[in-house]
């Protein structure tokens, strides 16, 4: 990467940051976007420390404990990718940044559900992602207001489920819904097929469109599929109703 040439100067102090404002943002009384205890790995060969984490906007703050008034530190999440990792610690995941000598933050939750919640929340936390969504909604609202002449452009058409219901939703589907007549031949009422991951635009949620490599997108979709699959497998272990009224 070519740097802009700069005049030779003695090594400068660290970048100034309005830390009081950051601390204020961390501790203001609006509900956090996510919070909870996570284990944070100190460095490559260091131990894990249990910290209270608070996600607000595109900032992930961490505190000594839940009662602390001032964060120990903050991870600015813009441009990161979030992945599951193999680690000695259970329920581990990583917040990774691109670039030479970039830091990777390895974190571990205290349960599978907490881990999935954090991975989801962190991968959609960036300002860039939010801005994408807002611009799309702005566009849709404009289209509707100007008489709705053209239907809103869908990022991608949602494929129908086997029983004819079109929309995938976050709630588990009712297992007792009967299949309508003329549905997929051979389908029977009973457990729903595993839900499809939500459709998204081609751009990764945490970075500019042209910097998302196929590997990143593949890994990102893959982790969603893995998470959904394990949810579905769990729900299969405890059938809901299974055809009984």
């Amino acid at each position, binding site marked *: 990467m070519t740097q802009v040439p700069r005049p030779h100067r003695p090594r400068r102090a660290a970048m100034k940051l309005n830390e009081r404002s*950051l601390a*204020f943002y961390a501790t203001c009384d609006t*509900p956090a976007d996510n919070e909870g205890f996570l284990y944070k790995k100190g460095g490559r060969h260091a131990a894990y420390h249990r910290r209270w984490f608070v996600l607000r906007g595109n900032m992930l703050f961490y505190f000594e404990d839940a009662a602390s008034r001032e964060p120990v*530190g903050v991870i*600015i999440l813009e441009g990161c990718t979030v992945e599951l990792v193999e680690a000695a610690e259970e329920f581990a995941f990583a917040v990774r940044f691109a670039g030479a*000598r970039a830091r990777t933050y390895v974190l571990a939750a205290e349960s599978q559900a907490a881990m999935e919640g954090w991975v989801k929340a962190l991968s959609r936390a960036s300002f860039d992602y939010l*801005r994408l969504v807002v611009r799309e*909604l702005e566009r849709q609202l404009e289209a509707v207001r100007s008489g709705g002449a053209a239907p809103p452009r869908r990022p991608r058409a949602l494929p129908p489920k086997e029983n004819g219901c079109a929309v995938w*939703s976050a709630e588990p589907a009712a297992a007792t819904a009967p299949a309508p007549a003329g549905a997929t031949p051979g389908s029977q009422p009973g457990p729903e097929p595993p839900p499809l991951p939500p459709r998204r635009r081609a751009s990764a949620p945490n970075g500019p469109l042209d910097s998302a490599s196929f590997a990143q997108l593949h890994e990102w979709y893959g982790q969603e599929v893995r998470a959904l699959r394990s949810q579905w497998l769990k729900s299969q272990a405890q059938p809901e109703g299974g055809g009984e009224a």
Partner: protein
Amino acid sequence: MRYNEKELQALSRQPAEMAAELVVKRRLVKLVVNFLFYFRTDEAEPVGALLLEHCRITQEEPSGFSISFLEDPERKYHFECCSEEQCQEWMGALRRASYEFMRRSLIFYRNELQKMTGKDPLEQFGISGEARFQLSGLKA
């Protein structure tokens, strides 16, 4: 407070929403997401950055403005623009630059679209259930 400085520096090199030379101390100022970076005009790395959450942008004289923060309203960061027009443009951009402003906009558009079409526009993104986008998040 510790923070990932390398990543913040990398962010300062990303495409800017806006960038210009604004005076008092002749700084290059660059708005990227919810950060305002300021540089000495001949340097590639920023002198500093301001996180633009819970801040107030106030006009000062004809072509200047100041930024102050909710937790310390007396402390003002002053910026002098080269024209009233540039000043208005920057004030508008900075007021819209916070994550919280973006969140409120999303909630507003979602609500409007829901009223007009009967459908939740966030479903296509798979984020309709997220607590951070609920209407109750809008404060009076």
